[in-house]
């Protein structure tokens, strides 16, 4: 499952040349403090104007496209909930065939699919798997806010253990979500695609550079972006970015990339903070007992150890120049 990946076309973003223009105009209808739309904007900044966006049904589609208004400065298409991978496949195949046949000119625009965690981990997993396996050159971005937020905070397979949602409610006989979060980056990496990465909007340069690497590789790329949802998680809308940072600092959501099967942990946390710091600021976890928190801490530690073992066994080559990321 290892392959050499050519990243020679990678155009790095530094603090000095951060692209200013988001392709998502302001004035959209996202909730106060929505980090998902912020993350989506960061992705489009890194990609630029020459792209086609394919959006699964979900919060981002609803808040940006109420006819006759649109927040999109790039071509944008929404078809249905579970098929962003398939629609993007069709777009990429059409661009490639039409270019070959002389029906369009110029380099291929970046084909970008956005979908939430439900549209990715649950209902759209098959279409995503098909698109990755077929090797279409596109970037699939999962904006993970860990539940079906658009329909009112129902659990998905990406909801973390212990979180209360409207369909995994905590109660006398329930801890809330009783299953562990589905490991989507691992599933995508298992498709033997050139590039997989996890990103956090609290580390915007890291996020945008992962987008740039995804653009550079020849084949499908998958980005899994941690997207704080104050409405669904029950946190203060102003703490979205600091909560995203806390998720990384506690190892709840580690930042790494898988380049042709080789791992690179892009944010190594020297002294991880206790998971409790992360849990206690969110209403979705407030029912948890001390022993539950200890159990979650163990899950986080185990996952972190597993990731480190993978990174030690299959290390990614060091990036040329070795420029230090932000922070």
């Amino acid at each position, binding site marked *: 499952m290892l392959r050499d990946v050519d990243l020679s076309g990678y155009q790095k973003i530094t603090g000095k040349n951060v692209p200013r223009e988001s392709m998502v105009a302001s004035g959209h209808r996202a909730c106060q403090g929505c980090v998902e739309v912020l993350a989506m904007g960061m992705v489009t900044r890194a990609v630029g104007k020459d792209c086609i966006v394919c959006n699964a049904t979900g919060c981002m589609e609803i808040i940006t496209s109420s*006819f006759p208004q649109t927040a999109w400065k790039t071509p944008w298409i929404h078809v249905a909930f579970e098929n962003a991978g398939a629609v993007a496949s069709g777009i990429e195949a059409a661009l490639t*065939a039409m270019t070959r046949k002389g029906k*369009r000119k110029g380099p291929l625009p970046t084909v970008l699919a956005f979908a939430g965690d439900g549209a990715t981990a649950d209902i759209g997993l098959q279409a995503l798997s098909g698109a990755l396996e077929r090797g279409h050159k596109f970037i699939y971005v999962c904006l993970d806010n860990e539940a079906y937020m658009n329909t009112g905070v129902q659990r998905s397979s990406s909801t973390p253990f212990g979180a209360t949602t409207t369909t995994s409610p905590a109660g006398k006989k329930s801890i809330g979500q009783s299953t562990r979060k589905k490991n989507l980056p691992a599933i995508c990496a298992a498709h033997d695609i050139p590039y997989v990465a996890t990103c956090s909007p609290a580390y915007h340069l890291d996020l945008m550079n992962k987008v740039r690497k995804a653009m550079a590789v020849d084949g499908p790329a998958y980005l899994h972006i941690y997207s704080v949802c104050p409405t669904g998680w029950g946190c203060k809308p102003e703490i979205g970015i600091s909560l995203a940072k806390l998720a990384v600092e506690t190892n709840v959501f580690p930042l790494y990339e898988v380049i042709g099967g080789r791992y690179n942990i892009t944010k190594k946390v020297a002294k991880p903070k206790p998971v409790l710091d992360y849990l206690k600021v969110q209403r979705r976890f407030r029912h948890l007992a001390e022993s539950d928190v200890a159990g979650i801490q163990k899950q986080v530690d185990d996952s972190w150890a597993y990731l480190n073992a993978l990174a030690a066994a299959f290390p990614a080559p060091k990036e040329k120049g070795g420029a230090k990321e932000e922070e």
Partner: protein
Amino acid sequence: MGKRVGIEVSLAVAEAVKLCDVDVVSAYPITPQTHIVEELSHYVANGDLDAAFIPVESEHSAMSAAVGSSATGARTYTATSAQGLALMHEIMFIAPSMRLPIVMTIANRSLSGPISIWNDHSDIMAERDTGWIQIFCENGQESFDLTICAFRIAEDKRVLLPVGVNMDGFILTHMIEPIEFMDKAEVKAFLPDYKPQLTLNPKKPVSMGPVGVPEVYMEAKKQYEQALWDSKDVVKEVLAAWGKHTGRKYAMVECNGKKKAKTVFVTMGSLGETAMTAVDNLIAAKQDVGQVRLRLWRPFPKEEMKKALKDAAKVVVIDRALSPGGVCGPVATEIKSLFYGDKNAPKIYNIVAGLGGRDVSVKDFEEMYALAKGGKIKDDYVIWGVKSNA
């Protein structure tokens, strides 16, 4: 008339799609559609067709990829059948609402359960109200011809709607028939290059598939229904142009048998040819009988159908699909409502026949005729040839 070649009809359809120089084919295999898409993938592999062949992982993705491709401006084709069409159902509504001129062959097959790979029209009848232009072929030549016509209809800027070309599974798809082909230049002279109106182009950004709030939803629906009704004139025009181009003339509704016949069969699809033989036999036996073949199912050619049936006293509508718990089969429902309130309405009988590949023979039609003539069909509809009272 050009040279006729004996060929399996599926391969003739694939040839038609190749001659139309499609840019993208997205397809998932399902019996009895397979030979069409296998042949297309061979064309692509051998360089005979310059297209992207997307071997999708399901029919839902086949239609979704077709939507993405067509929205990008590519001439796009897919084909399916039965369960596959049912899996596409959700996206079937979205393609016409986005005004995307996708062409799809439907190798008509019965829907499960019980699972059956054989022919009837239950698959397409479940998609009746999706907003597609729906054409039915009667034989192999029609399947070849109407596939080419479908692209010209779909892509006409007065239409911009997807077209489903129905052909009976196995009965047509797997039959070897003599078919008159055309060369690329002849097809090119008939089918202009596709000039899409709006595409996903970064130089001219548009948003496709936005949210339709209650204030705009009905207007959007009305617009595309209007486009569907308006497409009827284009269908007529394209069929006429085809007749001129090839000498093979088709109409949305066609009559056969005795003029002003007292008893008239209405059929759709390949049963038309069986009925034709039965009608010929009955006329030879001095019976007053005729036949109407319905080629365009959506938009329904109301005026043409009413005109075709205006002199009939008895109409026997054959449905190859059951509408369980309904008043009668889908085609008969249309024809009954067409004559509602009409003082001169004929007596309309409905026979549901040939489900799940059950053979409907010339003899069956002759028996149906005898029952109708004798006024012996009492129920709203009869399910033909069921072996017990079960």
